[in-house]
C-alpha cells in the first residue's frame, strides 16, 4: 500500500513542447507517484502550431489538437486552461495563478514558448494589425478579412510565408514585405531567395524585398496605409506582423532565475535553470546562448527534462540540435540543411540553378569535398532526405558531389543513398527522434507494416516529412527478412482489388465461379463476393440479380432496397437532380400512404420511404415503375445522387443552368457500380448552395463554364474537394468526369472512397491531373470507351426484375406462407410509423 503523499509536478505552458513533455512523462514508471498540473494560457488544449494555416482550409481545433482536455483529466492530471501563471516564488516553491489560486510544486517546468515580435513602427497599434501564433489570432484575422480584399504580412521568413498562405486561403490579395534583400534570409542564399520569390509571385502573392516600413496610417475608410522609405505607399485591410519570435521569459525574471541578455531562460544540459528544481524547455529556453525555434529540439529538451525529473538512469543530455528544415511554403518545396551559407572555413559550394523550371539546389562540402556541411533546395526537395542523411551521419560523399543535385539525365543517374547505406544510428524521424535502429527493433518485436511501426515508435507522427523514408526502411527491412507484404483481399484471393480488376478485364472473366476457380480458393466470403460482383458490374454491367451473380450480393443489392435495423426495407426512387413534378410528388405520397411507409426527404434531394416488408417491395415498385419512376440505387455501392441548386433559370445570381447539368450527369452515370458510393453536386454559381465541394464529384458554374472539384466527402471524416479543372465546357466536363470515375473504379481499393483513393495514389492530386487531363498514361480513350459501354447498357434493375418470375420468387418473407414477420412492430411518432424499441415491443406483446 502506498501511503506516501504524491509530489507535485507543475508544467506551465501547454503548447506542442509542453504537451510532448506530458506525453513522455506518462510513460515513466514513477508517473503515478506524482500529481501533474498543467497550466495553459490558451483556453484549449495543445494543438499542432506547425500546420496552423490549415485552420483556414477547413480544419478546426479538434483536427489540429493532440488531445482534448478530457484526456488529461482522465489520466488524473489537473488542468488550468485559459489561466495565466502570474508569479513564481522559488523559496516557497509556489506558482500564483491569475485566477487567485496558488499551486505548490516540487518540480516546475517552464514551457511557455515564445511570443511574436512586433516592431514598434509608428502606428503599429490599430484594430487591423495582428500577429500569427494562436487559434485566437487566426479567428481575429478571419473576422477582419470578412468582406475585405487585401492582406499584408510584414516579415518574409518561414512563419511570414506561412501567414501569407493563410491570408491567401482567406481569399485576400496578399503581399509580403521583407526588410532583407531576400526571402527567408536565415535559411536561404540570394539565388535561392530569388527562385522562391519568383515561384511565390507566380501564385499571385506580391513580394517586396529590401523594403522597410516607416509608418502605418489608419485611414478614415478603416484601412491601413503603409508608408515605405523608397516605395509608393500600400493600402491593406489586414496586416500581420511576423518579424521573428522572442522567448516568453517574463516568469523567469519574476522568479529571479538566470535570463540571457537578449532574453531566454538559461538552462544546462539537463534543461535545469539556475534553480535546480525549475526546468525550462522549448522556445523559452536558452542553451549555450542559443534559442531553438523549431519543434524537434523542443521535444528533445522535453525528453531530457522528463528523464532528469524522473531520476532515470538513461538521461540523454541535451546537446543542441540540427536545425535543418524541409517544408512546403505556399506549395513550394523549400529545404535548408546545416551550414547553408558556407561559413565553415574552406567550405566549397556547388550550385545548380534552372530558371525555366524554378529549381535551385546548392550543396556545401568540406574543403576536401568528402563531407556534406550544408545544403539549400528550392522548387524540388527530392534530394533532401539523401542529403540530410549524408550530413547527419557524416557519410563520405561520392567523388563528384555535384552529381547529388544535378538532374538525372539518362546514364548519369544521381546516386540516391539507399536506406541500406545508412547506419543504424541514422535519425529517420527527427521530430520524434526515431532512428533506423529503433525501426528495426520495432520490426524485430513483431511490427510488420508501416502502420504498426508508426504506432509502436511514433515515427512520422510529427510533421510527417519522413513518411516516404520510413516506408523505405520498413519495406527494406521486411524484404531483407524474406517477408512478403500481404495485400490479399481475404483468405480466398491473394490479390488486391486492383489486381482482380485487371484479371477480370484482361481474361474476360464473367462470373465469380470462373474467377475463384482460376485465381482463388474455397467458396468465397462476404468480403470477396460483393467486391468481385462490383468489379463484374463495372466491367460487364450484367444485371446483379442474374443467376450467376445472385449469391454474391449484399442483402441490399439482393433485394434492391436498403435493409434497416429491424429487417424492413426502405425504397428510394430516382429523382434526378432533385427535380420532381407535382404529380410525381403526389404519386410518391399516395404509394407511401397506401403501404403505410414512413417518409423522409434525404440529404441527396430525394424521398426515402421506410418500413416495407420484403414481400411488399415488388408491389410498391410495380406501382412506381408503372408511374415512370426508376430505381434510385440507394442500396448499391454505386452512383447515388446529383444534388443541385436551382441555377440560372430562377436564381438572380446563377451563372449556368445547374439543374439541367445535374440531370444530365445523374442520367449519364446512374447505375454505375464503384468501389464505394459516389455522390455528386452541381452549383449554379460560386455561392455554392449545392455544397459541391463536399462531394466525390463537384461542379460549380463560372461565367465561362464549369469548375470541376473532386475527392470531397462528408461523413465521419469530412474532406473538402480539390479543384481539378477550371472553365470546362459541357463536353469537356463530361469527358473529364468519365475518365476520372473510370480510373477510380479501376484502381481504387475495396470500400475506398475517392478522397482516400487519391491520398493513396503516389503523387496525389498532381498525378491524377496528369493522368486525366494530360493523358500521361495514354488511357484516356480507353476509359471513355469503357464508360460509354456502361452508359449504353443501363437498365432499371427494378423494371427488369419485376418482369422475371424466377427473380421475383426471392421477394417473399417466407417461402411456405404469406404471413408477415411478427417481430416487425411499429409505433406512431409525429403522425408516422417508426420501429418499436425492444421495451415497447415487450410491452405491446404483453398487453396483446
Amino acid at each position, binding site marked *: 500500500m502506498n501511503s506516501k503523499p504524491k509530489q507535485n509536478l507543475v508544467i506551465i505552458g501547454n503548447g506542442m513542447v509542453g504537451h510532448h513533455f506530458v506525453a513522455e512523462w506518462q510513460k515513466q514508471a514513477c508517473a503515478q507517484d506524482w500529481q501533474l498540473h498543467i497550466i495553459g494560457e490558451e483556453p484549449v488544449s495543445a494543438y499542432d502550431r506547425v500546420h496552423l494555416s490549415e485552420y483556414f482550409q477547413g480544419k478546426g481545433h479538434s483536427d489540429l489538437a493532440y488531445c482534448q482536455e478530457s484526456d488529461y483529466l482522465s489520466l488524473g492530471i489537473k488542468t488550468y486552461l485559459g489561466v495565466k501563471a502570474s508569479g513564481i516564488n522559488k523559496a516557497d516553491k509556489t506558482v500564483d495563478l491569475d485566477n487567485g489560486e496558488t499551486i505548490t510544486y516540487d518540480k516546475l517546468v517552464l514551457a511557455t514558448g515564445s511570443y511574436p515580435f512586433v516592431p514598434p513602427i509608428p502606428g503599429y497599434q490599430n484594430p487591423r494589425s495582428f500577429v500569427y501564433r494562436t487559434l485566437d489570432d487566426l479567428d481575429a484575422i478571419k473576422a477582419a478579412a470578412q468582406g475585405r480584399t487585401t492582406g499584408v504580412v510584414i516579415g518574409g521568413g518561414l512563419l511570414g510565408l506561412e501567414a501569407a498562405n493563410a491570408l491567401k486561403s482567406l481569399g485576400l490579395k496578399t503581399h509580403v514585405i521583407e526588410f532583407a534583400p531576400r526571402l527567408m534570409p536565415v535559411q536561404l542564399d540570394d539565388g535561392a531567395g530569388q527562385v522562391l520569390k519568383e515561384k511565390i509571385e507566380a501564385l499571385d502573392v506580391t513580394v517586396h524585398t529590401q523594403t522597410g516600413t516607416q509608418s502605418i496610417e489608419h485611414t478614415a475608410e478603416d484601412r491601413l496605409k503603409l508608408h515605405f522609405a523608397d516605395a509608393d505607399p500600400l493600402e491593406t485591410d489586414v496586416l500581420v506582423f511576423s518579424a521573428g519570435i522572442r522567448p516568453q521569459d517574463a516568469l523567469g525574471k519574476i522568479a529571479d532565475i538566470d535570463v540571457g541578455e537578449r532574453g531566454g531562460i538559461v538552462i544546462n544540459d539537463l534543461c535545469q535553470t539556475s534553480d535546480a528544481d525549475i526546468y525550462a524547455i522549448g522556445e523559452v529556453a536558452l542553451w549555450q546562448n542559443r534559442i531553438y525555434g523549431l519543434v524537434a529540439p523542443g521535444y528533445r529538451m522535453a525528453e531530457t527534462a522528463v528523464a532528469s525529473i524522473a531520476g532515470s538512469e538513461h538521461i540523454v543530455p541535451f546537446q543542441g540540435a540540427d536545425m535543418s528544415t524541409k517544408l512546403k511554403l505556399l506549395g513550394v518545396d523549400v529545404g535548408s540543411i546545416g551550414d547553408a551559407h558556407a561559413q565553415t572555413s574552406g567550405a566549397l559550394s556547388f550550385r545548380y540553378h534552372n530558371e525555366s523550371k524554378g529549381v535551385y539546389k546548392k550543396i556545401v562540402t568540406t574543403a576536401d569535398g568528402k563531407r556534406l556541411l550544408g545544403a539549400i533546395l528550392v522548387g524540388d526537395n527530392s534530394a533532401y532526405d539523401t542529403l540530410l542523411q549524408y550530413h547527419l551521419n557524416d557519410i563520405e560523399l561520392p567523388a563528384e558531389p555535384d552529381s547529388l543535385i544535378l538532374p538525372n539525365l539518362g546514364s548519369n543517374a544521381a546516386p540516391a543513398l539507399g536506406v541500406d547505406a545508412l547506419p543504424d544510428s541514422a535519425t529517420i524521424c527527427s521530430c520524434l527522434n526515431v532512428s533506423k535502429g529503433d525501426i528495426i527493433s520495432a520490426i524485430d518485436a513483431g511490427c510488420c507494416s508501416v502502420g504498426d511501426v508508426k504506432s509502436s515508435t511514433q515515427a512520422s507522427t510529427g510533421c510527417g516529412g519522413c513518411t516516404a523514408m520510413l516506408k523505405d526502411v520498413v519495406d527494406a527491412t521486411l524484404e531483407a527478412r524474406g517477408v512478403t507484404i500481404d495485400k490479399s483481399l481475404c483468405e480466398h484471393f491473394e490479390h488486391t482489388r486492383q489486381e482482380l480488376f485487371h484479371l477480370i478485364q484482361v481474361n474476360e472473366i464473367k462470373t465469380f465461379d470462373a474467377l475463384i476457380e482460376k485465381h482463388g480458393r474455397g467458396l468465397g466470403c462476404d468480403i470477396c463476393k460483393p467486391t468481385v460482383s462490383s468489379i463484374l458490374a463495372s466491367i460487364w454491367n450484367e444485371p446483379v440479380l442474374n443467376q450467376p451473380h445472385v449469391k454474391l450480393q449484399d442483402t441490399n443489392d439482393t433485394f434492391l432496397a436498403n435493409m434497416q435495423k429491424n429487417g424492413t426495407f426502405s425504397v428510394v426512387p430516382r429523382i434526378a437532380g432533385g427535380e420532381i413534378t407535382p404529380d410525381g410528388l403526389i404519386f410518391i405520397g399516395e404509394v407511401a400512404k397506401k403501404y403505410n411507409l414512413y417518409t423522409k426527404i434525404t440529404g441527396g434531394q430525394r424521398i426515402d420511404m421506410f418500413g416495407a416488408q420484403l414481400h411488399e417491395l415488388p408491389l410498391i415498385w410495380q406501382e412506381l415503375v408503372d408511374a415512370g419512376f426508376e430505381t434510385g440505387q440507394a442500396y448499391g455501392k454505386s452512383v447515388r445522387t446529383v444534388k443541385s441548386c436551382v441555377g440560372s433559370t430562377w436564381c438572380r445570381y446563377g451563372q449556368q443552368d445547374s439543374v439541367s447539368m445535374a440531370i444530365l450527369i445523374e442520367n449519364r452515370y446512374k447505375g454505375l457500380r464503384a468501389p464505394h458510393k459516389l455522390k455528386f453536386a452541381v452549383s449554379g454559381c460560386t455561392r455554392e448552395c449545392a455544397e459541391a465541394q463536399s462531394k466525390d464529384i463537384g461542379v460549380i458554374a463560372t461565367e465561362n463554364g464549369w469548375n470541376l472539384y473532386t475527392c470531397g466527402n462528408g461523413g465521419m471524416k469530412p474532406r473538402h474537394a480539390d479543384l481539378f479543372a477550371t472553365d470546362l465546357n459541357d463536353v469537356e466536363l463530361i469527358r473529364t468526369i468519365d475518365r476520372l470515375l473510370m480510373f477510380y473504379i479501376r484502381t481504387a481499393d475495396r470500400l475506398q472512397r475517392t478522397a482516400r483513393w487519391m491520398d493513396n495514389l503516389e503523387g496525389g492530386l498532381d498525378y491524377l491531373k496528369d493522368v486525366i487531363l494530360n493523358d500521361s498514361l495514354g488511357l484516356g480513350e480507353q476509359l471513355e470507351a469503357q464508360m460509354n459501354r456502361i452508359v449504353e447498357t443501363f437498365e432499371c434493375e427494378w423494371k427488369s426484375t419485376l418482369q422475371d418470375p424466377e427473380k421475383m420468387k*426471392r421477394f417473399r418473407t417466407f417461402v*411456405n*406462407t404469406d404471413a408477415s414477420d411478427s417481430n416487425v412492430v411499429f409505433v406512431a411518432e409525429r403522425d408516422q410509423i417508426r420501429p418499436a424499441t425492444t421495451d415497447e415491443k415487450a410491452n405491446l406483446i404483453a398487453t396483446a
Partner: protein
Amino acid sequence: MTVQVTKQWQKVCTKKDLVAHSGVAALVDGKQVALFYLPENDAIYAIQNYCPFSDANVIARGIIGDLKGKLVVASPIYKQHFCLTTGECLEDNTVKLGVFDTKIEDDHIHIAL
C-alpha cells in the same frame, strides 16, 4: 444424456423455392428458419433466422462462404459470422444459433425442429 429416437420431420417447401448458394426464410411451427442450399453436394442447411446481435429476423439474407474451413453465413446487419453446421458465432463464442436437421425427399424439403 438424451437420445432422440424419432425425429419429427415436417415438409416445408420444394427445391424450387430455394436459391442456390443463398438463403430463404421459412416459418415452421411459429419459428423462423433460414434455409441455405448448396447444389453441388445437394445439401440444405437450416439455421435460426433470428440474429441476436441485431434483434431482427435476417440471417436468411446473409452471404454464405467459408472461413478457415468452416461453412458460414454472415449476418447482413452487423456482419458476425455463424457456422452453418453448428450455429456457433465465430466472433463471440458465447453466442450460438439453433441449427436443425434437414432432408430432401422427392424434391421436398423436410426439417426436424
